[in-house]
């Protein structure tokens, strides 16, 4: 029987204590793994969306709110800009690509984003088209829409399906449904792994038409005059890709000075958001997880130490049978190492399994696509560090067993 098999047998022999210790380690590791994986992937996902556009212009208000509403389809918009502002900057020599967006309605909680056909010409970081059609075509008529992959999978909408938009950006019971303006699906986008998968893209003119008809109705009821619709046409935000990122601040300043709105750089805003809100929260979570792990490995230490104390006679017998001090130390050390290794593997499965279970809901709610089984470099280092903690926790009882004098523990009777 090998020393490793003996160590395993001793662990199994005191199965309840071993199980409790494993549970402690697994919970700590699961917490750390989940937090680190979420942190890594949220950073990736946030930056994946944030780098889509160099600049976003919108109505006056919070820059973060502007980014969240126009890039991540999460918050309320800050306000509108005249469509003429878009027309003015559209042909600026610094602009590589730009598109206006108009918000106002949703379908089952998915925002209907009014834009223009060339929105889909948006290049990715390598200059290739960012959007790919899974099936169908880009919209051509006013009330045709192209739906994101997440919208398609969760609403079961498909090509040529017809639906009605609901007023507002979130699904609210009793909200007004625009039954006079049916949308027809002309295309379904391939998954992008960004918040764009949760959007329904239609024409900006459809957004205008629906809301101008509402205005006309309200004006008729109130008896007030209706403004010339073309004069008041607006965009919720204008998205820009510039020829070089170095032009961002210059262009942002210019937009701020020459319009009634604001312009902000998504990457900067998201970084600020992460540093001011997300990072401190993650630090708190990581601190709690680290405390759990410290307690877990202290338990490993205590379990092994107590086990070695209780097994003093067994250890003495093994020595009497000819076992070397180093073999005894290895036996105790390996027991601890096995506990730590199994605990870490269980924790890893628990943490990432939990992410896998929650990933679909997370994607449906936020469009944040989690790859639950992906292990980042930071997480690998953390796991390695935890393994090292396990080894250190096992080392002390092993050293104690190494130093033990067998004759004292045998307590031979005379």
């Amino acid at each position, binding site marked *: 029987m090998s020393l490793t098999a003996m160590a395993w047998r001793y662990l199994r022999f005191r199965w309840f204590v071993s199980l409790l210790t494993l549970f402690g380690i697994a919970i700590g590791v699961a917490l750390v793994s989940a937090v680190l994986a979420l942190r890594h992937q949220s950073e990736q996902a946030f930056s994946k969306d944030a780098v889509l556009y160099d600049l976003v212009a919108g109505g006056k208000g919070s820059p973060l709110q502007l980014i969240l509403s126009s890039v991540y389809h999460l918050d309320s918009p800050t306000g509108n800009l005249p469509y003429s502002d878009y027309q003015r900057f559209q042909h600026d020599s610094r602009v590589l690509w730009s598109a206006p967006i108009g918000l106002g309605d949703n379908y089952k909680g998915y925002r209907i984003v009014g834009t223009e056909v060339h929105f889909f010409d948006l290049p990715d970081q390598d200059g290739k088209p960012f959007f790919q059609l899974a099936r169908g075509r880009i919209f051509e008529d006013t009330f045709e829409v192209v739906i994101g992959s997440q919208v398609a999978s969760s609403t079961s909408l498909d090509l040529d399906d017809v639906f009605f938009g609901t007023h507002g950006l979130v699904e609210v019971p009793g909200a007004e449904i625009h039954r006079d303006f049916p949308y027809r699906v002309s295309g379904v986008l391939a998954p992008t792994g960004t918040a764009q998968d949760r959007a329904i893209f239609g024409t900006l003119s459809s957004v205008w038409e629906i809301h101008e008809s509402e205005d006309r109705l309200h004006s008729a009821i109130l008896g007030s005059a209706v403004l010339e619709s073309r004069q008041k046409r607006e965009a919720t935000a204008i998205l820009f890709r510039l020829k070089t990122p170095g032009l961002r601040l210059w262009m942002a300043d210019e937009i701020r000075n020459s319009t009634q709105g604001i312009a902000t750089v998504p990457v900067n805003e998201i970084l600020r958001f992460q540093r001011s809100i997300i990072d401190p929260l993650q630090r708190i979570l990581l601190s709690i997880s680290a405390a759990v792990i410290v307690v877990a490995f202290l338990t490993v230490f205590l379990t092994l130490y107590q086990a070695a104390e209780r097994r003093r006679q067994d250890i003495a017998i093994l020595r009497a049978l*000819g076992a070397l001090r180093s073999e005894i130390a290895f036996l105790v050390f390996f027991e601890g190492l096995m506990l730590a290794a199994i605990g870490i593997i269980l924790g890893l499965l628990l943490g990432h399994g939990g992410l896998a279970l929650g990933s679909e809901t997370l994607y449906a709610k936020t469009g944040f696509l989690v790859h639950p089984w992906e292990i980042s470099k930071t997480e690998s280092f953390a796991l390695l560090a935890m393994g090292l903690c396990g080894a250190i926790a096992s080392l002390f009882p092993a050293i104690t067993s190494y130093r033990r004098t067998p004759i004292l523990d045998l307590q031979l009777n005379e």
Partner: protein
Amino acid sequence: MIRLNKVSLRLGNASRSSSVQFDLPNFEAAQGEKVALIGPSGCGKSTLLNLVAGLYRADAGKIQVAGSNLPTLTPAQLDRHRGAHCGMVFQTFRLLTPFTAVENVAIGLRFGSRKGMDVQTKAREVLRRVGLSNRLHARPNQLSVGERQRVAIARAIAGGPSILLADEPTGSLDPKTGREIFRLLLEIAEADNCTLLMVTHDLTLASELPNRFDCSKLVKTNKNEDGKEANSA
């Protein structure tokens, strides 16, 4: 085979004057000799046994066991020497509780530097020899006390040691079982031509061994500061 000459050993806490001094002028046992170590409790019988096993290191003197001078061996060499040449049997059996009978014997074989041996086959064979062929996979708590001592004997003899050191092997057994165990130990020692050193308080059993060594004058108890006798070894 075993020769101890002018061996001395101080046991206990010397600084608190509660130590005992073990002095053995001379002890010899030839190959295959069977010796009963007798004497009152605390007289040094087990100490002598443990000196032969190399579990105690003498402060002075020569201890020749199976061709090696024990005081000159390193701790690791001592452990391996013990595993290779000495089989130990204890009063309270000292079986490893998580392991079955056959595993207890196999573990005994593992540490004896007996390379190339089919440990499992040997362990089964030895258990059959002590009459436990039907209890191979029983754990210590499933065995009777007599069976436990048989497993302990199997473990001690499995590696084919040249010396059997038995410390009151019948001390925890009823007289009938004790006699059976004593007979078994003796038969095995005779069959394998082992040197047997057996500590016992049972003078009837001791009288059945060809040689007896009286240990009653090996230990001197030091007086502590109050002039009272300190604890014996």
